[in-house]
């Protein structure tokens, strides 16, 4: 199994500064994590190497806790190897982990936007 997790940390500090409706903040940030996990899942699927389609179909996401999602490939023994080595289709290398790396800036922007919108309430 190859998996990556998307987790939001530093929430206690944020809630301390947020004097109203912390439940709403948690709900909004959970949505941001879920949205970004879905984008990672979709991009990883599109980037994954395809021969029979097994690897592509195996890529999924699931919530592990509030603001914590996992994107993974399950029951495909070569999923990890193909993330790091692929001489036949080198453009697919990093289909999962590079996608996570590239998503970080968008993730930060989405968090900032969510907090900004909540402040307007």
């Amino acid at each position: 199994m190859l998996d990556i997790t998307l987790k939001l940390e530093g929430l206690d500090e944020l809630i301390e500064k947020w004097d109203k409706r912390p439940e709403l903040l948690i709900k909004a940030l959970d949505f941001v994590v879920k949205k970004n996990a879905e984008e990672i899942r979709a991009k990883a699927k599109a980037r994954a190497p395809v021969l029979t389609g097994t690897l592509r179909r195996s890529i999924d996401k699931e919530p592990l806790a509030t603001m914590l999602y996992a994107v993974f490939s399950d029951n495909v023994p070569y999923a990890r190897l193909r993330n790091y080595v692929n001489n036949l289709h080198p453009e697919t290398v990093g289909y999962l982990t590079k996608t996570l790396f590239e998503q970080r800036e968008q993730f930060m922007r989405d968090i900032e936007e969510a907090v900004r919108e909540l402040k307007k309430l």
Partner: protein
Amino acid sequence: MKINLLQAIVDAIEDVTGLSGALLYSPELDLNAQTKPFAVVRSLTDMEKIVTFDEAKETEYYIWIYAYPIANEYQAISLPEDIKNTLFSELTVTIGEEPNQKTYKSKPLDITVNRLNGMDNDLEKYGSVITCIYKIYS
């Protein structure tokens, strides 16, 4: 710019005890022709697009180091860890050419080790990959 950060990583890795050598990745590199144990440094960040000093400092570099140990030895487990520990040290990176050459420091924000195939008993066969996220600073 691409060579300088990657070369600094190669130079640091070459000091790891027991490693026969470290190489820069290229699609033409014949891994079977190398003497084990060896390491290959590869960037997944397109550094050719980073042309200014400011861009170089603003970028986070996503880099892999493949570690290929000698099969069936304890080194198969220890080598990736030794490389990882070495990379936690600060690296000096030169950017540009004289007279505009500048020297920066770089440090990893994150380093993880993964077995290439994820199967316990195949570790020696495929080796490991060390994932680093580097940042250059003044």
